[in-house]
């Protein structure tokens, strides 16, 4: 795959910034419309929205090369879109259609896009953290200089898989960057009730011999900066990094979460730190975007998401014979 030159540039350019704002808006709109489709029972199963956390994925994925890899957990729509997945493929997946990014076999929690190096949404908390170390292992084994980014929530800090993978990643100096999106809630259990310390860098960084970097996850440029540092370290063969990105999810854990464990005041206050509002203001201040351009951008994104919904609604259901397809590479013999 071709390599982009973004990493070589020390500062965020105007074009890149506007592109990032556009991606964040696209994710927000995609999630808002997903919520509606869920309420209409067109999206089934479990559906976890990324609204409020957009700057984490967009700022960090935004400084990757095309040949790098990305893993995330089940709150995966934002990372997939940030990595360049076509919203049509994502929306069709959630509607269970054969044109979906996982042919309708994965759903909201299991988005995959091999072509973009998007290694999946993974739905067992912590389970994908060793997988990301495995991809990093393969990079090193083959002598490459790519890196693997791996996202998870603060709830995953409590899983053994994370601690096993962190130890091995550091021991073997694997080019993996772990980013905990600390949205202060492990499903409905607030951080101080599930973690002995609310400073996750203490649990993930120095304890495993890697830098533990605390960053405001709602500040997209800071996200980009710390990820660049970690990428430099990974590509130089210096090993993994751990980034704690503090953020907040505006919605419930999943669509079926009434959010009784937090006050309306807390949720309202958090919206003052909305990463999109913050970045829009910053870009306006710098004179990099003006109100009419912004309005036009909003309209275009609305249309793009609407187009994705139309595509998904009209896409065919998976053929019944696909039930038995893509189980094994060798011809699958059902034991029936």
């Amino acid at each position, binding site marked *: 795959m071709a390599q982009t030159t973004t990493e070589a540039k020390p500062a965020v350019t105007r074009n890149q910034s506007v592109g990032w704002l556009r991606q964040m808006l696209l994710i927000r709109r995609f999630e808002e419309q997903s919520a509606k489709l869920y309420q209409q029972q067109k999206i089934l199963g479990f559906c976890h929205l990324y609204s409020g956390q957009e700057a984490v994925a967009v700022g960090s994925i935004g400084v990757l090369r095309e040949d790098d890899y990305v893993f995330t957990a089940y709150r995966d729509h934002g990372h997939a879109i940030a990595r360049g997945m076509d919203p049509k493929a994502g929306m069709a997946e959630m509607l269970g259609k054969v044109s979906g990014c996982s042919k309708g076999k994965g759903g909201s929690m299991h988005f995959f*896009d091999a072509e973009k190096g998007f290694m999946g949404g993974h739905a067992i908390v912590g389970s994908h953290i060793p997988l990301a170390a495995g991809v990093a292992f393969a990079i090193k084994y083959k002598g490459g200089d790519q890196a693997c980014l791996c996202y998870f929530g603060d709830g995953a800090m409590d899983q053994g898989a994370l601690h096993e993978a962190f130890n091995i990643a550091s021991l073997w100096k694997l080019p993996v960057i772990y980013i905990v999106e600390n949205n202060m809630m492990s499903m409905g259990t607030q951080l101080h009730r599930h973690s002995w310390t609310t400073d996750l860098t203490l649990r993930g960084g120095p304890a495993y011999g890697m830098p533990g970097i605390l960053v405001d996850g709602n500040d997209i440029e800071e996200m980009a900066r710390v990820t660049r540092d970690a990428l430099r370290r990974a590509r130089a063969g210096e090993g993994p990094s751990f980034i704690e990105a503090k953020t907040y999810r505006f919605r419930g854990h999943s669509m079926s979460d009434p959010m009784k464990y937090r006050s309306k005041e807390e949720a309202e206050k958090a919206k003052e730190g909305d990463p999109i509002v913050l970045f829009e203001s910053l870009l306006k201040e710098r004179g990099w975007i003006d109100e009419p351009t912004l309005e036009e951008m909003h309209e275009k994104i609305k249309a793009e998401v609407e187009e994705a919904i139309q595509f998904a609604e009209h896409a065919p259901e998976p053929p019944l014979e696909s039930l038995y397809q893509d189980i094994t590479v060798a011809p699958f013999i059902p034991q029936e």
Partner: protein
Amino acid sequence: MAVIQYREALRQAMVEEMERDDRVFLMGEEVAEYNGAYKVSQGMLDQFGPRRIIDTPISENGFCGIGIGAAMVGLRPIVEFMTFSFSYVAFDQLVNNAANMRYMSGGQFSVPIVFRGNSGVGGSLGATHSHRPEAFYAHVPGLTVLMPSTPADAKGMLKAAIRSDDPIIFIEHENLLGDKGEVSDDRDFLVPIGKASIVRPGRDVTLITYSRMLKITLAAAEKLAEEGIDAEVIDLRSIRPLDIDTLVTSVSKTHRAVIIEEDWPYCGIGAGISDRIMQKAFDELDAPIRRVTAKDVPVPYSRVLEAAMLPDVGKVVAQVHDVLYR
């Protein structure tokens, strides 16, 4: 052809495949500097170096996941469990990630990996170290489960497993590691996945077994021969997929079947095999299918109690008498 041990046959398979393909590597506890807890990987570190023969911390969940991740991007890991009893710590990785990845991703990612190691009631190892995990893993669509019972099959099946593009659960037996037998030195000697072997042809009853129980079953067949009962012995080799055609052909000839397994009875492999034979060939049966299994108890430490829980020749002969109405 050379006469070698089962463990040497496993090693030959790995060495030959690693010489053939740089994407293949071995990872696990004590596989490198210790030369293998059961000496299966003896000498491999010297030959291939630490890049490809890799000692791991005691972190089954972690290193199995690392193997799966590496396989997703084109490597072909062999992950050794010191014993398959320890795979339960990594159950999530095997069942959720290795088995489901291809399906969940709509065919975008495959996981060409071999999980291998010994298993079974090895001798006074107690309840935690004597598991027979085949039924757990054979339950899962997406996994292939292989269990060789001879040195020749150990080599040919492991080579086929390493060359497979799918996740393979390759279960050896602790008590077979020192067994000797003739093994091919053809570097392309492969035992096809999904093919059972008729180890002893016979007319009167079909004895279906695998792994360590093959020896007991063959001894029972000799004993039965003394009584004039001609037993056909089938070594499954592949637990999933099951070679149902070979079983149906045999049962259509003998009209009677006994399944011999070291696993527990309830929901054990024999239960699934019995069901499949009934679905395909009920009309061919002249007697209900009988099973000889381990007793439905945790594995005890005492030698006496352990022996009492396991199948033996007498128990096999008794069930054959039952299906022959003798």
